[in-house]
């Protein structure tokens, strides 16, 4: 299947910092591709180049075969962008917001009006279409933000962390909408630092950290990279750094990472290791509040690839 988006060796530097370093991937029509990584990993800079906001220093991004950049006006018609920040006008109504961005995409009446009505239906804002956006709840604003991106039925929809700060109900509605879009043949580039969103939505996932793609593949392909290891999370207080150091010395423990309240271990055969792990942590003066054992997931993959937790 022909690629809707093809990124070839994208590099973008800000001073000495390489925000994006040699990133390449493709997305086919009807495919949802996830960029999974922590804040500051390079996701938004990658998206900025894909959406034509930034020129890459090196490499090229092509949409339907044509290079995209700030001056590529015609190519931008194929792209719908949903920025991480709410990109709506609070002092315009929901309908006015949609109509304005639709006109910028070249849509005109009566097609524009019909399409605005369709999108209002999709995002569940028909009843509130005439209200100013500043009167919407956070979830409603997020849905309007997404609705603007898909109004002109782009070939490629780029969503940059669309569920940040959204209540669970609205979040589920957004995820269902994205699932429906890929089912309609739209190529979707979806960035997130929520592992469960990437697992649920994405046909393929790229793990990005420090501006570089660490790995790419389907969920199962990525899980295989870990060697099918399990994960143990120790939640508690005390000197977590000392506990992590002590746990690294245990046989069967592959990697250890910790943040403010949790020590995370990737291990082979978690059930047999839980007891020595707990006693070692307690011996290292960690006060345990909870112990959680889980099978491999993308969090484990990220830990395996980068040596740190996704939430770091």
């Amino acid at each position: 299947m022909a690629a809707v988006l093809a990124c070839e060796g994208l590099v973008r530097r800000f001073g000495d910092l390489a925000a994006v370093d040699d990133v390449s991937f493709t997305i086919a029509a009807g495919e949802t591709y996830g960029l999974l990584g922590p804040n500051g990993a390079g996701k938004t800079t990658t998206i900025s180049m894909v959406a034509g906001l930034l020129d890459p220093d090196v490499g090229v991004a092509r949409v339907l075969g044509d290079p995209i950049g700030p001056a590529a006006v015609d190519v931008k018609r194929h792209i719908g962008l949903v920025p991480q920040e709410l990109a709506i006008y609070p002092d315009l109504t929901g309908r006015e917001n949609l109509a304005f961005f639709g006109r910028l995409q070249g849509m005109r009446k009566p097609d524009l009006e019909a399409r605005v009505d369709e999108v209002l239906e999709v995002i569940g804002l028909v009843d509130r279409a005439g209200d100013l956006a500043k009167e919407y709840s956070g979830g409603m604003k997020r849905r309007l933000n997404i609705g603007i991106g898909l109004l002109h039925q782009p070939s490629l929809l780029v969503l940059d962390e669309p569920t940040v700060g959204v209540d669970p109900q609205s979040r589920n509605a957004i995820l269902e909408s994205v699932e429906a879009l890929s089912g309609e043949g739209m190529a979707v580039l979806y960035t997130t630092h929520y592992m469960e969103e990437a697992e649920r939505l994405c046909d393929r996932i790229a793990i990005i950290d420090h501006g570089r793609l660490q790995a790419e593949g389907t969920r199962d392909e990525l899980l295989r990279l870990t060697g099918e290891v399990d994960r143990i999370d120790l939640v508690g207080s005390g000197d977590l750094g000392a506990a992590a150091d002590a746990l690294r010395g245990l046989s069967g423990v592959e990697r250890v990472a910790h943040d403010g309240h949790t020590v995370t271990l990737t291990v082979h055969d978690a059930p047999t290791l839980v007891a020595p792990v707990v006693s070692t942590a307690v011996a290292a003066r960690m006060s345990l509040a909870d112990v959680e054992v889980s099978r491999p997931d993308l969090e484990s993959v990220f830990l395996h690839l980068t040596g740190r937790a996704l939430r770091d």
Partner: protein
Amino acid sequence: MDTSSIWTMARKDLRRSLRDRSVLIFGLVVPFALMIVFNLLFSGIGSSEDFDPVAIAVAGVEDPMVSPLADILAAQLPMETTVQRLDAAGARAAVEDEDVDLAVIVPDGFGPAIQSGGSPTIELLDRGDGSIEVGIAASVVEGFVSQLALASRTAAAAGLAGLTGPAIGDLASEVAQADPLLSAVPGAVADEQLTLQGSLVAGQTALFMFFTVGFGVISLLEERDQGTLPRLQAAPIHPRSIVVAKTLTSFVLGLVATAVLLGAGSLLFGVTFGSVVPIAVLVVATVAAATSLVLVVIRIARTAEQANTMNSILGIGLGVLGGSFFPIGGDGWLARLSDLTPPAALIRGLGITHGGGGVADLAGPLATVGGFLGAAVVLSLVIPDRELQA
């Protein structure tokens, strides 16, 4: 560039501006309020009601040649005037006792002396406080004396020409009482000078023009602050279209606010600024110059808040310098600098149109705003666009 996209963005911004109360407040309400306040404060300046009453003692005006003087003083001075007829000693005493402000003492034999070509002296005594009212009265007396001096010279000339006896006296009397052959017509204010109310309307309009145009271009920084700029940049429009649309918004807001302020101000204060066409040309040019200044501001400011503050400071500074509140007179460098500002050009231009001037007469003000616009546009292109990069 796609003009349709530019108009779409400008229309959106104009709609948002109409919903923004601060545009209405700073664009129309505040300038009107200031016009009214300043009008109340300054409308009394220059009226005759500000003169104090004056008391004058006259002595020796029984002589037929000088008898009209007392009536002239009583009737023709611009302030309330009381004239007392006293003898010479009484008049002197009245001034010393501060019962009167001025004493006019005509010596005995004044008339005959004039008729024979002599040089008698009228004595003027005042209290020495240098009041403007006494000065005006003294000027009137001196004007009257000048006419008598002409009569005296006529009599002297007649004597030299061989006339004798009563003929010389008759001739001198006729000259003294005749209307002057040459006269100065009281000067009217120059046509190009706005009235006090006209200056208030023009000055406040020029000042607040800077605030109004700021609402358009500065919204470019607001777009970035609120996150909508990336979405505009991702739309299929030329990157420069966004700035052009914002500039158009500023220009339209400035034009509308200026037209409303000048039109409503004219009706409110009963002033006229002349023909519509030259006024329109002048306003379009001045609004363009004010808009160009905001293009410089958004290059320097990092946030919309910073830009608004900078724009306000520059607007008020240029307004004060340009004479929005008080004209800067004299020939010093401050006055020359004032002449180079758009507010000064607008006020000066409206003075010209008020006096009946056409577009061709506006060459000076138009050159001023043209130069300002050119300099600001060049600056806005030279200053790096560091903040609006995505």
